[in-house]
């Protein structure tokens, strides 16, 4: 722990006290032997005030089964590319639920640099991880994400829901042509669930309207 000359943060703090600490003290809490409660609250407070400086301490918790979600809670709103770097790195190392959580955060941050990694995860053997990766690609919703989803759609309908969201993302970016192509690819599948088919048809028709 760096010797700042400042008094260490007492670990038996109330929530209201933790929520008023400044970043340096919160990071100190995270990297100390503080009780779970204090570290959890520190993560939640960093969600509001955390900067690039907090990313290493938070990212270090991504592999912790108890704190992985708290780490993402703190990381997701921090507007710094080092967060995306940390999440991408973790997505390749973690497995199971923790991996799914990190993938979800990549999608929520719409990290376009994660498309390749997400595509690999979508091709993996863990069906839940693959579904999360598809959903994240759908949320990123750009041309490269659409290409990857369409590639998988040719062999399975399981990414159909993610395709719907991807189409909407393409449209917000002005990419009408690729959105229509993805809607068409969806509707070529005869085995879509009725709700997805209707949503795809509705989306296609709305997109075609001048």
């Amino acid at each position, binding site marked *: 722990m760096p010797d700042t000359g400042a008094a260490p943060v007492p670990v038996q703090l109330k929530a209201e006290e933790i929520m008023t600490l400044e970043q340096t003290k919160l990071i100190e809490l995270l990297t100390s032997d503080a009780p779970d409660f204090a570290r959890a609250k520190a993560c939640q407070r960093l*969600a509001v005030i955390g900067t690039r400086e907090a990313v290493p301490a938070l990212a270090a918790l991504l592999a912790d089964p108890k704190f992985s979600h708290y780490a993402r*809670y703190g990381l997701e709103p921090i507007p710094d590319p080092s967060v995306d770097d940390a999440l991408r790195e973790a997505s390749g190392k973690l497995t199971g*639920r923790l991996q799914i959580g990190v993938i979800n955060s990549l999608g*929520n941050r719409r990290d376009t640099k994660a498309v390749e990694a997400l595509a690999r995860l979508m091709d993996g053997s863990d069906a839940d991880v693959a579904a999360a990766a598809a959903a994240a690609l759908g949320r990123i919703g750009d041309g490269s994400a659409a290409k990857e989803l369409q590639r998988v759609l040719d062999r399975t309908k399981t990414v159909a829901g993610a395709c719907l969201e991807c189409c909407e993302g393409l449209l917000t970016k002005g990419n009408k042509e690729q959105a229509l192509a993805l809607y068409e690819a969806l*509707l*070529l599948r005869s085995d879509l669930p009725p*709700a997805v*088919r209707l*949503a795809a048809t509705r989306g296609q028709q709305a997109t075609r309207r001048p």
Partner: protein
Amino acid sequence: MSSIEIMPLDQLISEEMAVKRTSVSRRQFLKATVPAGALASAPLIIPGSALGKNGALPASERIVLGGIGIGSRGGLVLSSFMSQPEIQFVAICDIRAERRDAIKTKADEKYGNKDCAKYSNIHEILARPDIDAVLIATGDRWHTTASILAARAGKDIYCEKPCSMTIAESLALADTVRRFGCVYQAGTQRRNVANFTYVIGLVHGGTLGKLQTVHANTQDPKVTHNWLPAQPEPPKDVVDWDAWLGPCPWRPFHSDYVRGRWRGYFDFHGGGILEWGSHTVDLCQWANKADNSAPVEYEPQGKDVICLYANGVKLVMREGGWQKDLGTCCVRFEGDSGWIETGDFARMNLSDNLKDKHKTFTERGTTPDGHVRDFLNCVKSRATPRSNADATSQSHIACHAAYIAWQLGRKLKYDPVKNEFVGDAEANRMRSRAIREPWRV
């Protein structure tokens, strides 16, 4: 060249919805009511009710309902549903074994059989193709996630309020419902309760003149971030604590949370503004014809928040100062030609010049019957119910934005088109919270 024939959208929707309206084929109904194995053995006795005899609707006219997280309030709403002739309640999903048993008993007694299925896993109940709609009455923390899962599964949704925990959840909810075209009704009731609809009618009809200020009865916004002391976790088949938490941050188990005493905790409760504001701010939005928008300014004053719409109407979210004997969830509308104030006791007070507009009503604001009826009518017609996802999303955004302003202790400006605060990065970071894996919205 596309090989797909473009079917007119109206025709497609009409065909798909015809399928949805008659989704309970006779065979499916019989499968649900006849014990497994009986179909292949003894002569099949078809209940007369299945054929529409004795006043019962035929199976093809019924709406098959499932329930998710039904406690005391949910039980009241479920009773209202089950009193409707077209409803057939077939399944309950709950993380608590005693609640699953209680609702199954309720349903089985109603139908005189033992057919109500029990689930502890939300995916399983939503995977049932025979279920048309779900009643979601879990705690606040689950409302958005469960609704979105249901929408993706093609179900129509009646979800108790409040319907979201954050601005981001509000938007995700509206987007998903719109994407899948399902019928969504927020369990706020009052848009289908007589005294409130009458008062809104007066406002919209110009009786109050130009609307100036709307007031919404809210509660003390203060919540706690604390945890209760850890207790041993019960067996999963008794209470699934991981499932109870769902999308919320982990904390140690305590039976108080599960027994309904989760309000007031930041992680589980949207706060006092949202608690009643999901009803009253919603009514104010309706009065101001702002169902597709939210206020652009929020200024905290003590426990209250003063808001301003782009059209100049002021919205006052306040805890106190309400007229006596109007009950809970009061609203007050002020125009340049008079004012009116009403609440859950169905009473109203008006300015002197409008006394002739006074009307007496008896239906309480907490009554779900009209709202349930509106929802079921829309399930059949595919029309949009009054407390639909778009309107609900905006009224919730107004509450969340006010709560954020109150937490930060400063005035905020909000852009309801971009759905972001203007010039306040901290406030913008509070628009969403990362959801616990494996859930996502």
